[in-house]
């Protein structure tokens, strides 16, 4: 069955190549060959193929590859051109001019700068309405124009430092397809289901020919693509509800590639010899957080930075990395990761795991142990140090993480109880009542940032109450620095500001960062040009470079 299936796939691929348009490069050399389909497995759920509706990462992965974007990240996580071959900025930083490459949409219509201008202006026009979810990618832009088919001009109202990282997710839509759908008032824009109108016209390296969010979605090579021709004819993304099933499919050669391998499986999966398991860079950082709202009602001792400093020595990152992530993670001290280098403050080290130190610090601060071994707060209204820790079930392995923290805290005389909820309920418990954050004590969650640090630095802003904030941290000095780095165009100066911001957070400890997880992925033998899947939603390069060797 497998051989037959493979044969049929090759036959199909050849057929696809034959019917596709022109311009084949020189014949393949050595053992690599062109064509074929990569069968990828994922447990990330699709939500929609409508860019105005979708939020899920895997949907964005598809958009990144099927739509032209001005810039993308390369395999060193640096921004390079995608559709734009060059760009210039005006002296005041308010006008960006991009020179873009000629190309064709998958239905044969020409791709020009006018498509980009139309997309951008439409988003701006409806940014308080139907296009709100795409507005952050051209925030501070005021107008786009296309003086000629290969030139795009974007005007900004502020000289913003992270224009390019933002534009990396500015998907350019085909005007001739979307203009009638948008109409004059963008009514019903969000009700439009591209998945029901296949093939979905795309102008990137691929376009969507089959969409099944519970099954397999197929992306076929776009013959009119403006960049180097992909080696593959198609990419197939199969969704699985759990990773066991996905790994089983990989093992039985029903899949070629899995974009995320659970850490517990990573070590044994490679033993068979026909699968390579690669621990790639990941962007997820696990954290432990304190309620930092100055108005919180109970257990106000937790607001004291000295107490937090003492408690910070009770986090056994080594054991967590060993037990929860099987060695496939690294200890971290800040929200910013090396993927955003040079913006990660490398001078800050994770707090040392030292229970004796923690105990002595707590003793010195006056938290005496009661007869049951639990410490009590000093002074009047003394109460035992017993706190609830909110954990969302959506975070993998959080129970084990918590158990390790709980056991360490028990040894320093602090009692922790787990409050386990699903993500939505957990967030509501954190923000209650009414986004005032008056109730909870502690929580454990994670953050997935982007390569540019702007987003991750913003999650602790004063304006994020009820938004992204899960610690209610509010520091005007920090916010001021955040605004500043947002408009500092000189990378070195910006780095200094960002480092200072991290120092502030490290001192105040709304979070105790635990570890950055590796994103382990696996390929069956017979592939080359592999790039880590963390790039899949930020670059066309992974699927462009991928090639079969057998």
């Amino acid at each position, binding site marked *: 069955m497998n051989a037959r299936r493979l044969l049929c796939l090759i036959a199909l691929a050849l057929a696809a190549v034959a019917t596709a348009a022109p311009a084949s490069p020189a014949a393949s050399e050595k053992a690599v060959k062109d064509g074929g389909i990569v069968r990828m497995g994922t447990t990330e759920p699709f939500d929609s193929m409508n860019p105005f509706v979708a939020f899920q990462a895997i949907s964005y992965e598809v958009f990144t590859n099927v739509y032209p974007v001005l810039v993308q990240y390369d395999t060193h996580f640096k921004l390079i051109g995608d559709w734009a071959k060059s760009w210039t900025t005006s002296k005041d930083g308010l006008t960006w001019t991009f020179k873009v490459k000629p190309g064709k949409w998958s239905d044969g219509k020409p791709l020009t700068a006018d498509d980009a201008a139309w997309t951008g202006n439409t988003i701006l026009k409806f940014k308080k309405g139907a296009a709100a979810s795409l507005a952050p990618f051209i925030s501070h832009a005021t107008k786009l124009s296309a003086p000629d088919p290969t030139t795009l001009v974007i005007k900004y109202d502020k000289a913003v430092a992270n224009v390019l990282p933002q534009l990396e997710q500015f998907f350019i839509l085909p005007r001739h397809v979307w203009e009638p759908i948008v109409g004059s008032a963008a009514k019903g824009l969000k009700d439009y289901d591209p998945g029901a109108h296949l093939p979905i016209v795309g102008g990137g390296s691929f376009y969507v020919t089959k969409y099944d969010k519970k099954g397999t979605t197929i992306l076929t090579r776009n013959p009119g693509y403006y960049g180097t021709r992909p080696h593959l004819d198609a990419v197939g993304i199969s969704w699985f509800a759990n990773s066991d099933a996905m790994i*089983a499919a990989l093992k039985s050669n029903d899949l070629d590639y899995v974009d995320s391998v*659970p850490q*517990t*499986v990573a070590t044994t999966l490679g033993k068979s010899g026909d699968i390579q398991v690669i621990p790639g860079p990941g962007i997820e950082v696990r954290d432990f957080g304190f309620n930092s709202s100055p108005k919180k009602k109970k257990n106000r001792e937790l607001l004291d930075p000295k107490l937090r400093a003492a408690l910070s020595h009770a986090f056994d990152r080594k054991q967590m990395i060993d037990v929860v992530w099987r060695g496939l993670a690294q200890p971290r001290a800040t929200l910013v990761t090396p993927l955003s280098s040079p913006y990660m403050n490398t001078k800050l080290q994770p707090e040392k795991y030292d229970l004796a130190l923690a105990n002595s610090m707590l003793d010195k601060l006056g938290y005496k142990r009661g007869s049951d071994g639990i410490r009590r707060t000093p002074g009047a209204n003394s109460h035992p140090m017993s706190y609830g820790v909110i954990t969302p079930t959506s975070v993998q392995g959080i129970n084990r993480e918590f158990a390790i923290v709980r056991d360490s805290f028990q040894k320093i005389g602090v009692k922790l109880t787990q409050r*386990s909820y699903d993500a939505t309920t957990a967030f509501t418990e954190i923000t209650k009542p009414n986004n005032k954050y008056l109730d909870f004590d502690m929580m454990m969650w994670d953050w997935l940032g982007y390569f540019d640090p702007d987003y991750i630095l913003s999650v602790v802003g004063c304006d994020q109450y009820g938004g992204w904030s899960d610690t209610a941290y509010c520091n005007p000095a920090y916010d001021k620095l955040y605004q500043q780095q947002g408009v500092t165009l000189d990378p070195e100066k910006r780095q200094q500001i960002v480092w200072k911001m991290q120092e502030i957070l490290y001192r105040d400890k709304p979070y105790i960062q635990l570890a950055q997880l590796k994103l382990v992925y696996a390929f069956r033998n017979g592939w080359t040009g592999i790039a880590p899947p963390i790039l899949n939603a930020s670059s066309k390069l992974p699927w462009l470079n991928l090639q079969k060797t057998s």
Partner: protein
Amino acid sequence: MSAQAEGLVVAPRRRLRDNAVVVALRGSHQAIFGGAVLSVVILIALLAPWIAPYGEHERVGEVFEPPSSAHWLGLDDGGFDMVSLMMFGTRVSLIVGFSAALVAMLIGGSVGIIAGFFGGRTDTLLMRITDYFISIPDLPLMIVVAAVWGRSLRNIILIIGVIYWTSTARVVRAQVKSVRERGYIRRTRVLGASNMRLIVRHVLPQVAPLLVATSVLMVAYAIFAETAIAFLGLGDPSATSWGLLIENAFARDAITVGAWWAIVPPGIAVAIVVVALTMLGTAIEDALNPRLRVSHVSVRRFKLRAAPPRPEDET
């Protein structure tokens, strides 16, 4: 009819040992097996902290270490000893089982007694409510309620109890109805006894053995339901139950890793306890009244409560 038969003369108390039900049970293989297993499990639960080879939170090795002479059932996904976890697991599983059964019995028993005793409109109303409860699918309801209330042992017990009370209610109601029609009840009422007195002194003792039998079965199903709830990720993560052991192993890819020792024992343990309790419960039921047609079909798991109203129930 003799005065004795009408219950106006209270018969002398007989020794429990000679009670017909107990005699029947003593001869029943099922009851003996069930009782024995239950006793062993309870014993393990009580003595767990002393007889378990390792601590419940004591990490003794690597994640999913295979069985060895030091760890007969290997280690789980946190590096804890499976044998010890199994022993500690009896505690939570039994606590959930008995508590949930108690809740179900209290609610169901009360509803059944009130409906059966007072009859008429009260009966119809209560039975309608019961029927609605029966028709609502259990597992989705449990999932939603767990999502709303959060995952804690107390909530799990309440959820199971609140969903299971219906079968007890129906069974008790039928029994109460037949008891109510007995001569001596009518006469006692004529003599001026209050409803409360009637219920407590006369109806309850007649119904109690049936309640006990149903409760034993209820414990079995509560333990079973707990494993289902834990498997769907709705269990209390700090309470080591057998259901949680299965879920932890499954969620951390024990299947792919091949760590059967983390999955097989808890499942077998649940089965053994549920079988034992079921045997004990049905043996008690049969001993009570061989003619009592408590449809065993009616107390099955997927049909977590009694079968839908049958024509002969509507009198």
